[in-house]
């Protein structure tokens, strides 16, 4: 059987951060309750000159810099996001041009709330497996929108990661993937609207928890694995609490979850969230480590992956691009007023 998997990867997180406590203060909320309740200390903030296209390009270039594949061998680029800079005009075309992969490739933008990036991985796997392409680039990135004063404002952040999927020199084999999808309106953004709306507590049990637990169990059934078979487990992380709770429900330990849990220090990067979690795990993973990943996208669906790290990871030139931990540590704080300016919350004529 041919091993299909990850050939290289790259991550990007904008440098600016805002503390949850500063957002709470702006809206007259108790900083301690908010920070503690959501498990988010601070979140990343994109500058005025950053968007999903620039984050995707930075991640994809990092992925390419770590390996020696010819960009002209990239047969597909899929960018998953719910904050594409254009409603009509694919982000992927900008990425393709910026990594010198044009013109002989297929490109499309994906949207499936926070799981559009993992959907892109699945598509690339299928195209590689069917020999339609040699390499595919799957990207999940967002500069997530949140209405001023909404609970989402503490979480919605910016970042992304890119994965080159192929079957030669694979650093991590994707053994199995499966999905779980229903029509569950827990969170949405209507066409033409600037900010999303959500069902409050309805986003929990019937949405996030049901889809992730169902899909995770399906995957373990398919692969015949148990939680203790995995070195790392990554779950979608809309806040700092949900992924820890869902892990516990499924029988994973906090130790397994830790390396892939970034939300407390960068917020929810939406389509970037599980992708950045996986990048963070790959930064430290060793040959034969096994990784369990389950994404979640509102609306609703979940993609799950069973991944095994190969010996080839030792040959990947990780130092050619920043590690996730380095991106997290390189930061500069902004206050709420600057955040409002950067996120285009101010209105004037």
């Amino acid at each position, binding site marked *: 059987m041919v091993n299909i998997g990850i050939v290289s990867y790259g991550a990007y997180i904008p440098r600016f951060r805002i503390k949850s406590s500063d957002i709470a203060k702006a809206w007259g909320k108790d900083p301690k309750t908010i920070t503690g309740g959501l498990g988010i200390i601070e979140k990343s903030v994109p500058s*005025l*000159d950053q968007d999903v296209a*620039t984050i995707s*390009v930075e991640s994809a270039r990092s992925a390419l810099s770590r390996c020696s594949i010819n960009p002209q061998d990239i047969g597909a680029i899929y960018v998953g996001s719910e904050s594409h800079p*254009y409603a009509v005009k694919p982000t992927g075309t900008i990425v393709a*041009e910026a990594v*010198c992969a044009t013109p002989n490739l297929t490109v499309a933008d994906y949207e499936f709330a926070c799981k559009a990036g993992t959907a892109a991985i699945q598509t690339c796997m299928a195209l590689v497996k069917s020999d339609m392409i040699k390499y595919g680039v799957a990207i999940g990135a967002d500069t997530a929108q949140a209405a001023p004063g909404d609970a989402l404002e503490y979480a919605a952040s910016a970042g992304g990661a890119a994965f080159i999927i192929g079957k030669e020199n694979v650093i991590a084999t994707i053994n199995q993937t499966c999905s779980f999808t229903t029509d569950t309106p827990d969170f949405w953004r209507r066409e033409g609207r600037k900010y999303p709306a959500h069902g409050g507590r309805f986003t929990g049990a019937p949405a996030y928890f049901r889809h992730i637990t169902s899909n995770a169990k399906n995957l373990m059934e398919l692969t015949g694995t148990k939680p203790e078979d995995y070195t790392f487990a990554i779950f979608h992380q809309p806040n700092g609490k949900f992924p820890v709770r869902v892990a516990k429900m499924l029988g994973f330990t906090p130790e397994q979850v830790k390396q892939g849990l970034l939300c407390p220090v960068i917020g929810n990067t939406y389509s970037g969230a599980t992708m950045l979690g996986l990048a963070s795990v790959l930064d430290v993973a060793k040959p034969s480590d096994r990784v369990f990943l389950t994404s979640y996208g509102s609306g609703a669906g979940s993609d799950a992956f069973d991944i095994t790290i190969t010996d080839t990871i030792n040959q990947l030139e990780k130092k050619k691009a920043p590690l996730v931990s380095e991106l997290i540590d390189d930061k500069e704080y902004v206050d709420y007023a600057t955040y409002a300016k950067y996120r285009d919350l101010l209105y004037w004529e």
Partner: protein
Amino acid sequence: MAEGAVPRFWREIPQRYNLIGNKCNECEKVFFPPRESCPECRRKSMGKMKDFKLSGEGEVLTYTIIYEASEKFEGQAPYPLAIIQLKEGPKITAQIVDCDIEDVKIGMKLKSTFRKIQDDGYVGAIYYGYKFKKRN
């Protein structure tokens, strides 16, 4: 800049995204943006100019901090702007990002990064290109 005219940006995408310059195969001199002919070799260089991708590595030759910007950039002010000596020879003018304005110095080592440069308002196209950030 004239607004709404997309071709003017589109035709420069190789330069703005990927720093594609060119090289005179007579004298090996590298140009950015690419030139039709080499100003040194002139006639001899015709037909001998070859595309050349710059590494994006360079250092600050001189700089300023822009406080009064044009409306396309005023949200970013104050921002550093520099003339950067690229290691392959050409010099270019670009913004420096992700750095405290106090840290910008002549000789500071830089590498290129991909950013949004400007757009034609909320309705028009978005133009991307190079900016520079610190390189260790």
